[in-house]
């Protein structure tokens, strides 16, 4: 368990023990409102992907905004359990639940929250149906449509068959349709990301029309995680909700591809210079174990002249880009912008909510480590 030096809410942000995970609440709220405002008039709802921060307090901030769906999406059943325990009663799982042990947990959780589970396989529908019958619950099940090569989901021509299969199972309820987009990678242009999002949405809404022609009621029609084309998707008839992980946090991997200009990263890491071994190099106390380099290196906020030359497990390497002498001393503080905010949250037990220069709240990253 993490054990930073104690800093109470009300303290100045520069008192935080480093490395410290910090969310700037003004930025978080501004980022989130901007997307909510872009879609609000359309009737489509924004369902935050809570895996992005794993923090119930942040999820509740998002759900309190106009334009938000009634709940969040999550990746794992463990995350679903955590957010349900925080009082969120509307959850969308985005990965199938296949093992008997996990299906039993899902049935139990259904008594506390409405949890929609995706399927892409008829045998999985049967397993869910049998377990729900034994548990005496009715599970809402969505057909996952595959629109991305690296994601689960049924091919579009199998969707109708699966929907009917769910509809026939007495202990299941056909909840609707969903699709998941793969991660944005460094080489993707904004246009490529936007085309992929709109193409996937078109496949989804066309499947919806097919289902409705066949007399199946489609409750949700959900696409995620969206990065680049909120406004365009909001104008597409047939979608009921857009899921997004990145929109409020705006991390380094997503910032360049987000819809519009003027975004600021909301999640940052406060780090301290611990060594000045060379004129143009500083070593900081934030390494891979505190910020991760799995999906990219962080950048130094407000210092375009500096670059993160590398991260080892416990250290970060900060260099001047042009090799000129560095103006930092041992004990100085820097702000790092994670390339992958979700990965950074996954390494911390607590997140500091900061407004201006003041620590406003300290929250548990309650679903950290809930890979299960």
């Amino acid at each position: 368990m993490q054990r930073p030096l104690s800093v109470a809410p009300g303290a100045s942000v520069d008192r935080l023990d480093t490395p410290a995970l910090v969310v700037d609440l003004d930025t978080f709220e501004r980022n989130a409102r901007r997307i909510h405002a872009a879609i609000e008039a359309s009737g489509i709802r924004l369902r935050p992907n809570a895996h992005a921060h794993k923090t119930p307090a942040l999820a509740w901030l998002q759900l309190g905004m106009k334009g938000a769906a009634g709940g969040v999406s999550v990746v794992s059943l463990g995350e679903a359990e955590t957010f349900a325990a925080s009082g969120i009663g509307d959850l969308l799982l985005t990965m199938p639940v296949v093992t008997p042990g996990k299906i039993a947990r899902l049935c139990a959780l259904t008594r506390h929250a409405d949890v929609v589970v995706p399927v892409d396989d008829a045998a999985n529908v049967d397993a869910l149906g049998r377990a729900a019958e034994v548990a005496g619950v009715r599970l809402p099940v969505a057909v996952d449509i595959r629109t991305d090569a690296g994601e689960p989901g049924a091919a579009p021509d199998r969707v109708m068959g699966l929907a009917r299969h769910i509809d026939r199972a007495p202990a299941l309820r056909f909840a609707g349709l969903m699709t998941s987009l793969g991660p944005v990678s460094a080489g993707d242009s904004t246009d490529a990301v936007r085309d992929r999002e709109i193409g996937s949405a078109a496949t989804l809404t066309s499947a919806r029309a097919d289902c409705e022609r066949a007399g199946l009621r489609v409750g949700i029609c959900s696409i995620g995680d969206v990065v680049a084309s909120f406004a365009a998707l909001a104008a597409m008839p047939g979608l009921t909700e857009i899921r997004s992980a990145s929109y409020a946090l705006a991390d380094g991997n997503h910032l360049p591809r987000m819809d519009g200009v003027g975004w600021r990263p909301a999640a940052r890491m406060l780090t301290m210079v611990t060594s000045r071994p060379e004129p143009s190099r500083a070593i900081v106390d934030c390494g891979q174990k505190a910020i991760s380099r799995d999906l990219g290196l962080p950048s130094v906020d407000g210092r375009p002249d500096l670059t993160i030359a590398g991260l080892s497990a416990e250290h970060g390497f900060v260099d001047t880009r042009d090799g000129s002498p560095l103006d930092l001393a041992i004990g100085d503080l820097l702000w790092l912008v994670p390339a992958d905010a979700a990965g950074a949250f996954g390494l911390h037990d607590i997140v500091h909510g900061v407004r201006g220069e003041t620590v406003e709240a300290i929250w548990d990253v309650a679903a950290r480590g809930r890979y299960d």
Partner: protein
Amino acid sequence: MTHRQPLPGTPVSELDTPCLIVDLDALTHNIGVIARRYEGTGVQLRPHAKNHKSPVIAALQMRAGNTVGGVCAAKVSEAEAMVNGGVRSVLVANQIASPAKARRLAALAARAEVIAAVDAPEHVRLLGDAARDAGVTLGAVIEVNTSMRRAGIRAVEQAPPLAKLIAETAGLRFRGIMSHQTISGFPSREERYKVGGGYFARVMEVKTAIEQAGVPVEIVSTGETWTYDVAADTPGVTEVEGGTYVFMEMGYDYMTEFRIAGRVLGTIVSVPEPGLAIGDVTVEAIGAPNGTPSVEGMPGVRVRALTHRGTVLESDGRTPLRPGERYTLLTHQQDVTMNRWDEYVVVRDGVVVDVWPVAARGRHH
């Protein structure tokens, strides 16, 4: 954090996934290899706790013998976890840059031998102030850069004045020097001896320079798993900061005397097309800083991608992929993986024997 722990006696095949398992026999074997190698030599192991973050495993290492009776730690809060777990000596192989952290380290020195690494006069001042305020003695070693361009003094001439400063600072005791090195690729034994031996020669130059200035050097702490044997054959090295060897990783598999002891188990949750599957081990659950993990025991299956939603597995057809089937991933950087988990599920012969907390997980302060 999950609240479910498997009971002893649970077969590995029944564990919920994703799950980090530790093979107790392999772990014990690995610990024994270095303990036996150092028998009768001038060098001892100072196991690095950053790799396992577990006082239980630290105790196994010390019980196996030929250690200094203490550990290395990467951070102050990691050192606290080790002392709280019964470890009596900790070398923090990192620089203390704030008065608050120095105070915390000084508080720890009331309960254990505490040594910190320095590479500049600022560190000496911070540690000295904190030690005097707390009425304790903190040990200090000079970190010497030999291979990574990380922290550490860059030139031999920097060492004698810094050593003297430490020796003259009330509250501090100069203990010696430390240096950490890496090697890339798959070196042969000869290459390891040549490259590692070259690094150690530079460390010894620093030692000699400090001694010539009249300051005795008690500790020369250097080397890792890839040089554990080189260090034993290098006169003057007193202790080795070995850590990777405990669990091992794919990047070190040229060190054939050690066995893989850590694995992450997953379950396939979707097979959207023949030869392609999505499993439940996410990028957060294993980490991929040095490339995607390897798949064990499934010929022709490899990890195509690791994302926040799971593992994308592809098969060349030799091994069919089916929903509900288990798979095993081997990490390319064990300490990053272990830091993602709250507990080790310890197994022997396919059955759970115990669950150990990863006590210092997340302790990056």
